[in-house]
């Protein structure tokens, strides 16, 4: 079973040390890494190996003792395989936290027990809510520096859990830890005798919502077929000259040979049946959500990149829209204003878009949507906002798989055409 989790916190709350501790105590650190960080720690005058050096890999990070960008780490226990996306704490790096969190199931948010919840903690939790993560763990670190105080831990934990309520997160839990000493991380340690709950690792190992017998049944395979076409494959003259197949990744549903599908692009809906499901040279009888395959149809139809093949028959069909209302997270130092133009990439389509209106900004402290006046309203870096976008060409949107990791038709990037940089990202809500 694979769990992807993201860690985030504020500057100096010991996040890199916590991950170093997790890796160290699960014995995921190799001998040459131990030798390297021991030598580096000695050069820096530390008595003990500095565990944060296991993850802070860039020169500037080591010089400044900070984390700059998302680092991915891999480890496993007897129970599970883990991919950790370790994200920096600086406020200006929310874009990096989002990068790490967008594919995660679980978030571990760190706070310093002396400082308690910070604006940054609220922002990170709000971003987790925006992304729809399945579990949030608040790790109250440096509990050793408040004399292992039960009262202090419970005060912070209570405040966090009640603050998170409006976010509608399914699973919010707090745990006291000392990354430096190791208590509460992998092992219980000796200092937290009053704490009867699970350790951080035990919480990470708990089954997630929908998980049974070591697999997550997201239900994606049971949903109607959604297959955005990435690329059209034509056979080579010397291999299979008549081959014409549509390559893509199945975002939801199951496709079987013989299934009737509809080509969705505009108002015209062409029908066809699936003649072959190909994975390279192999031919499959069926394929399910998550798989990348190539589909051949039983008749000549006009299909190109950006079109979708969807299940025919009853059930919801994607909608063709020329405007949309979405919750966005903004990453750029250049604010977004009404009237600004961007490229919008959703699935395999990219279209031009213009900001019609900024409807509201989310106050991440209070978790309230504040309506903004159109003339003065702008969305600044790290803001969460609800906006209305007008599209230069209509696109297909779809909410049926919005709860899934892939979620085609409900998530998009905003790209600045002049710099090619991803400046924002959005999620459609019902």
């Amino acid at each position, binding site marked *: 079973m*694979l769990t992807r989790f993201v860690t985030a916190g504020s500057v100096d709350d010991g996040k890199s040390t916590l991950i170093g501790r997790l890796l160290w105590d699960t014995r995921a650190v190799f001998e040459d890494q131990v030798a390297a960080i021991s030598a580096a720690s000695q050069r820096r005058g530390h008595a003990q190996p500095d565990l944060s050096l296991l993850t802070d890999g*860039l020169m500037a990070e080591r010089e400044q003792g900070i984390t700059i960008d998302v680092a991915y780490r891999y480890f496993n226990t007897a129970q599970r*395989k883990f991919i950790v996306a370790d994200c920096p704490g600086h406020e200006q790096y929310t874009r990096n936290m989002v990068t790490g969190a967008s594919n995660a199931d679980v978030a571990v948010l760190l706070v310093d027990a002396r400082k308690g919840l910070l604006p940054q903690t609220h922002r990170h939790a709000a971003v987790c809510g925006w992304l729809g993560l399945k579990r949030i763990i608040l790790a109250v670190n440096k509990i050793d520096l408040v004399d292992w105080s039960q009262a202090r831990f419970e005060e912070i934990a209570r405040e966090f859990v009640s603050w998170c309520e409006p976010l509608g997160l399914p699973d919010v839990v707090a745990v006291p830890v000392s990354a430096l000493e190791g208590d509460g991380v992998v092992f219980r340690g000796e200092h937290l005798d009053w704490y009867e709950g699970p350790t951080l690792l035990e919480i990470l190992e708990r089954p997630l919502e929908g998980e049974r017998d070591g697999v997550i049944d997201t239900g994606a395979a049971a949903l109607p077929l959604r297959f955005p076409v990435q690329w059209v494959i034509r056979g080579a003259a010397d291999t299979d000259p008549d081959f014409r197949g549509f390559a893509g990744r199945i975002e939801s549903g199951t496709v079987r040979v013989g299934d009737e599908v509809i080509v969705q692009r505009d108002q015209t809906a062409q029908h066809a049946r699936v003649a072959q499901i190909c994975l390279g040279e192999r031919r499959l009888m069926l394929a399910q959500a998550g798989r990348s395959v190539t589909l051949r149809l039983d008749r000549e139809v006009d299909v190109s990149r950006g079109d979708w093949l969807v299940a025919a028959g009853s059930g919801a069909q994607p909608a063709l829209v020329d405007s949309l209302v979405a919750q966005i997270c903004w990453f750029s130092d250049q604010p977004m204003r009404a009237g600004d133009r961007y490229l919008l990439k959703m699935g395999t389509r990219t279209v031009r878009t213009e900001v019609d209106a900024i409807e509201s900004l989310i106050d991440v402290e209070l978790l309230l949507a504040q309506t903004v006046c159109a003339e003065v309203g702008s969305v600044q870096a790290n803001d969460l906002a609800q906006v209305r976008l007008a599209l230069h060409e209509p696109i297909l949107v779809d909410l049926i798989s919005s709860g899934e990791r892939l979620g085609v038709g409900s998530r998009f990037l905003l790209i600045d055409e002049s710099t090619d940089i991803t400046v924002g990202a959005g999620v459609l809500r019902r």
Partner: protein
Amino acid sequence: MTDLSISNRTQASGWIDSARIAMAAPAVKLANDHLDDLEAEGIHILREAVAERKNPVLLFSGGKDSAVVLRLAEKAFRPGRFPFPLMHVDTGHNFEEVIAYRDARVAELGERLIVASVEESIRTGRVRLADPAGSRNAAQSVTLLDAIKAHGFDCCFGGARRDEEKARAKERVFSVRDRFGRWDPRNQRPELWNLWNARVSAGGHLRVFPISNWTELDVWQYIAREQIALPTLYRSHLRDVVRRDGRIIAVTDVTPAEAGEKVERIPVRFRTVGDITCTCPVESTAQTEADIIAETLVSSVTERGATRMDDSTDEASMEKRKREGYF
């Protein structure tokens, strides 16, 4: 994936046909197999880059990681031709077996191979080595960037993985290089979900890493499952070596034994394959994928730590090379 070792060994025993499993096992099992997930992600990445870039190239070193990327390319684009050529940056210090493997693989695929030669760069004065007998690993960057420019490539597929090294662990899947080929780790784009931004400004190019999220173990499990051929160097073989600074050095024309060193003939295999002057074997009797997977599971040393001389010269040698345009 509760017990990696058990699932490995069953997979290593032979070809597994997903279609057959799909009919025999509950649907959710198929949907959650982690190698299938990694494979599907890699294929998706290759296709997105090809659809959005004008002139991609696949960097093929003859090593196991690029062999996996090649297999993903077959799954992504067959029965069509690859919509890109392959390119090998040849340092001139290669193991013969690797070059033989490279050429055999290219012939079998029927695809086009471009060889960019570091020796040529040295001859034309583009590369000047302080130590002509030393490692040419860093010099590859010059040859690579010159070839990218000469062919007008705007996207290079590489087999780098995030678990290899700390600087790699920080790199995006779609990684932007400026017109000097430089990576700026402090100024990377946000990268969300499976929506890849493949745009790049004029003069720059992308490095795209379809197996970013794979570990060394995943790679070996996949090689076993897919029965991917590799250079014989990856399996245990007898070789003349010397022991130097805790490493095993293969005795070759460009890495001769030094005075006073004792040459031994022992069973070894390579965990990574690169320029002869900076790649070391490890002591091993592992012959099959299953043996190698079993060794990988209990290894106490990282893949590059055991085998790469140039990565251990200082704490950030990989980052420095990457900033200058390295793979």
